[in-house]
């Protein structure tokens, strides 16, 4: 019992409950002192939730070391957490590998929750007419599905980046380990607050939260805004760490173009999430203020401008989608050479393409607003900039197939998912230009075609690469491999079904099916398509369930995999699995190119005290 309450997570949640109550009580008190009616739900609950989040962080211990530093006390540089065993994972750990795994587990949990929401409303959609959900229940589930999945993606990429970046560059840990722990733990109360919206009346705006609708939505809307604002800090503070780590802590002789290619992806991603994330926070906070204080930013009657919200919101949310996919595209570039046994084709071009996508990605946000009535002279430039993103993206695709060409390809499960990523992301990318050219977008905007397009890009750019990364690095994390047969089952359950699902989404969208609707006219003839889509959804869920079972079983009793089972040249595979506590007991220096597979006698890294010998 005492051990249960010693877990950071448990203490955090208890403190959060306490903090929420305190916050609510505080607002009631202030209102009484100001002579107002004591109870007004919205300000009380919003402040309570905010205070609850802060208290969670106090309870879990994320502030402890910083508090000590502020008080002038000594704080140890490194902490030996090995005595804690599995408890490490439930509290503040300074080890980036532990934090990476914490992110991974949280990401899979959120993905499952978001997925279950989808299964529920997809069941409702399988037949026209409303079968068991009310309109507001549908809208809330659909909106939460979107945002919970988005948060799961941000958490999932944090998992991959936090686990692998220090390993790939030869660092002992991230530049700011405590900041790293804080960045993880703030995502937990943020997620809880986001999910609490379901129990506070829900909300009906979709994940985009446009005013004026979001101004008049129920209380759940505020929990949505607050939850996302808090989750934004995970992104922002995480990027500070990634950028500082990559700039400062690389191994000797690891020059820019001798870094593993994934590092370029991580940098490009972090540049975006460091800067643009603030804008979604701002846009949501302004709506929160409109609701709480009557500030008419987006109220035309007061002189406000609803379109301003869309500009602020999409200025982040478009680059955000590149945050979602750049790490995954980096994973594809990282893993193909290992399984094709061949050099990554055009390394420098691929590295630059990640930066290119990130930079151009800042200039295209208006393409989400082509039908909003925004200033006419802006529409065409945004069309040009949007189409331009295709070029660096194309560079990646051509590089990938050129890497495979004349390789010696093998097909373990990580490779299967890497290949699926390419196929699915290709479909997502190719279905983009019709959205970019304004005239065609006028037909496609707000239809299921868009839903199909972004599911393709997100599955291809995040979901499948995430699976690939987990199958690939699981041995590094645990010293065991994931079961290959279950992995293949997972693959064959999710891949064809997802492909069909996205094609059907685009089909009904082109024919007139709008998005975000709880029900549709049977006269449109979409019933069969929707039934098929729902079945595909359940197949995908089954695949993910197999994956989760595989994870749990293999962590305990999977086939031991202590060595370089993939025969990778990357530094982390030159040391035993699971990864030693401080990563590299002997430092290494870079003596060759990262992807010179097929060049006899070439080595990438050499460890201290190692004899110069041929690489197998």
């Amino acid at each position, binding site marked *: 019992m005492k051990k249960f309450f010693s877990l950071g997570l448990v203490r955090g949640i208890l403190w959060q409950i306490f903090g929420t109550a305190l916050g609510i009580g505080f607002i009631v008190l202030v209102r009484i002192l100001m002579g107002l009616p004591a109870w007004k739900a919205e300000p009380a609950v919003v402040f309570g939730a905010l205070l609850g989040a802060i208290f969670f962080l106090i309870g879990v211990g994320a502030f402890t070391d910083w508090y000590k530093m502020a008080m002038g006390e000594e704080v140890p540089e490194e902490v030996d957490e090995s005595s804690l065993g599995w408890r490490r994972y439930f509290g503040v750990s300074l080890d980036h590998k532990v934090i990476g795994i914490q992110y991974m587990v949280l990401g899979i949990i959120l993905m499952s929750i978001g997925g279950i929401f989808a299964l529920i409303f997809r069941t409702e959609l399988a037949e026209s007419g409303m079968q068991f959900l009310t*309109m507001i229940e549908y809208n809330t589930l659909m909106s939460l599905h979107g945002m919970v999945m988005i948060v799961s993606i941000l958490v999932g990429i944090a998992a991959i980046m936090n686990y692998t970046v220090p390993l790939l560059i030869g660092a002992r840990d991230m530049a700011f380990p405590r900041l790293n722990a804080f960045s993880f733990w703030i995502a937990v109360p943020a997620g809880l607050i986001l999910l609490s919206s379901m129990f506070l009346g829900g909300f009906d705006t979709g994940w985009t939260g446009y005013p004026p609708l979001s101004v008049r939505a129920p209380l759940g809307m505020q929990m949505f805004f607050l939850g996302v604002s808090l989750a934004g800090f995970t992104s922002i503070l995480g990027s500070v760490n990634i950028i500082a780590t990559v700039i400062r802590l690389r191994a000797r002789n690891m020059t820019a173009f001798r870094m593993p290619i994934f590092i370029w992806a991580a940098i490009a991603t972090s540049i975006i999430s460091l800067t643009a994330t603030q804008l979604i926070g701002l846009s949501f906070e302004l709506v929160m203020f409109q609701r709480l204080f009557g500030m008419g930013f987006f109220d035309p009657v007061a002189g406000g401008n609803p379109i301003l919200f869309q500009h602020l919101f999409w200025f982040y949310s478009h680059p955000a989608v590149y945050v979602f996919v750049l790490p995954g595209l980096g994973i594809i570039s990282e893993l193909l050479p290992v399984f094709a*046994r061949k*050099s990554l*084709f055009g390394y420098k071009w691929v590295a630059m393409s990640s930066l290119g996508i990130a930079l151009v990605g800042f200039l295209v946000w208006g393409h989400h607003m082509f039908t909003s009535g925004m200033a006419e002279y802006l529409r065409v430039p945004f069309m040009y900039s949007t189409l331009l993103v*295709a070029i660096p993206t194309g560079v990646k695709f051509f590089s990938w197939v050129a890497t495979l060409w004349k390789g010696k390809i093998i097909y373990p499960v990580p490779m299967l998912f890497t290949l699926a990523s390419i196929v699915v992301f290709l479909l997502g990318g190719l279905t983009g*230009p019709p959205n970019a*050219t304004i005239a065609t977008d006028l037909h496609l905007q707000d239809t299921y075609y868009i839903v199909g397009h972004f599911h393709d890009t997100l599955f291809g750019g995040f979901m499948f690469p995430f699976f690939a990364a987990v199958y690939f690095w699981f041995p590094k994390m645990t010293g065991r491999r994931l079961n290959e047969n279950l992995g293949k089952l997972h693959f064959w359950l999710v891949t064809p079904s997802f492909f069909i699902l996205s094609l059907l989404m685009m089909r009904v969208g082109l024919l007139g099916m709008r998005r975000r609707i709880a029900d549709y006219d049977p006269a449109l003839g979409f019933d069969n398509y929707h039934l098929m889509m729902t079945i595909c959804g359940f197949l995908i869920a089954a695949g993910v369930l197999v994956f989760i079972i595989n994870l749990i079983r293999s962590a305990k009793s999977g086939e031991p995999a202590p060595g370089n089972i993939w025969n990778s040249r990357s530094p982390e595979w030159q040391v035993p699995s699971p990864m030693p506590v401080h990563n590299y007991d002997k430092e290494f220096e870079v003596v060759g190119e990262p992807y010179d597979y097929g060049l006899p006698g070439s080595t990438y890294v050499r460890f201290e005290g190692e004899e110069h010998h041929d690489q197998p």
Partner: protein
Amino acid sequence: MKHFIVVAILVIVCTFLVYTGLTAIGLLPIQASEQAIVIDELFDVHIALISFLFSLIMVIMFYSLVVFRRRKGELGDGAFIKGNSGLEITWTLIPFIIVVFLAYLGAYSLGEIRRIDLTALQVNVTAGQWYWQYQYPEYGIASTDLYLPVDRQVSLDMTSNDVIHSFWVPEFRVKMDLVPGQVNNLRITPTITGSYKVRCAELCGASHAYMEGNVFVVEQSEFDAWVSEQQSTVVIDPVLRGQQLVQQYGCTTCHSLDGSSKIGPTWKNLFGHQVTLDDGSTIMADSEYLIQSILEPNLHIVEGFPANVMPDFKDILDQTQVESIAAYIESLK
């Protein structure tokens, strides 16, 4: 060399198959407007491009996966090829040219669909949660159905009374949002007579899925007849006229006649009774109150109902029309 020839043939075949497949299954609804014709041509270009690029990447990829796989017992790594600047430049430059060309086509088609016909029919569209309302200023009529003469451009000036909505008839292709506080313009030239549905295409609250209305594209003669009918059924009797106006302007979307609770207060038994306002005071619901409430709804907010939802009708209805509506409400017991 052999590889390249085989791949090239496969790419051509695959492109052909994908393109004919996609165009055969009928991806889009019928083309019922001039704008649709322009837009579908651009779609066609996109589909051709998608067919080619998908085939190019997929054929090379799957060819490699089969031909360059490691066979049983084979050792060693793949060929040592790190890159090729010429190839990189080529596959950067050619996509760039294609993209600029596509953008040009996009700009051209945008210009085409936005052509202004000075003799266009003017219709003002107002949407709210969850209704469509049309006014024909040239004819002084209002309706909740959109009647359009075929082969004539209609200029829709659109705004919203509350949240953002979006006007979309898939057969016409084009759509435009309705934003409170601003007027967005959309021009459509319908080409095929028939009845269509306009459905709101921007999530606007609980009943977004059901926010639909009728669009009737008819011959000019039929349209003229409809206009005359709307104009002439301006009835002399104020109560009946009020009833007609109530129907035309969609008042009962928010105000019930049978006592049931909707967005606004019910009209059943309203006239002649005391009404409690949101500041606690009470007021008599007499003619003056009814007329004020229509012209400036935010003057008196009834307790339990939201402010800033009902539009100000003082710019939409004239005094006689408002008095007729008040007379009609009076008649409801």
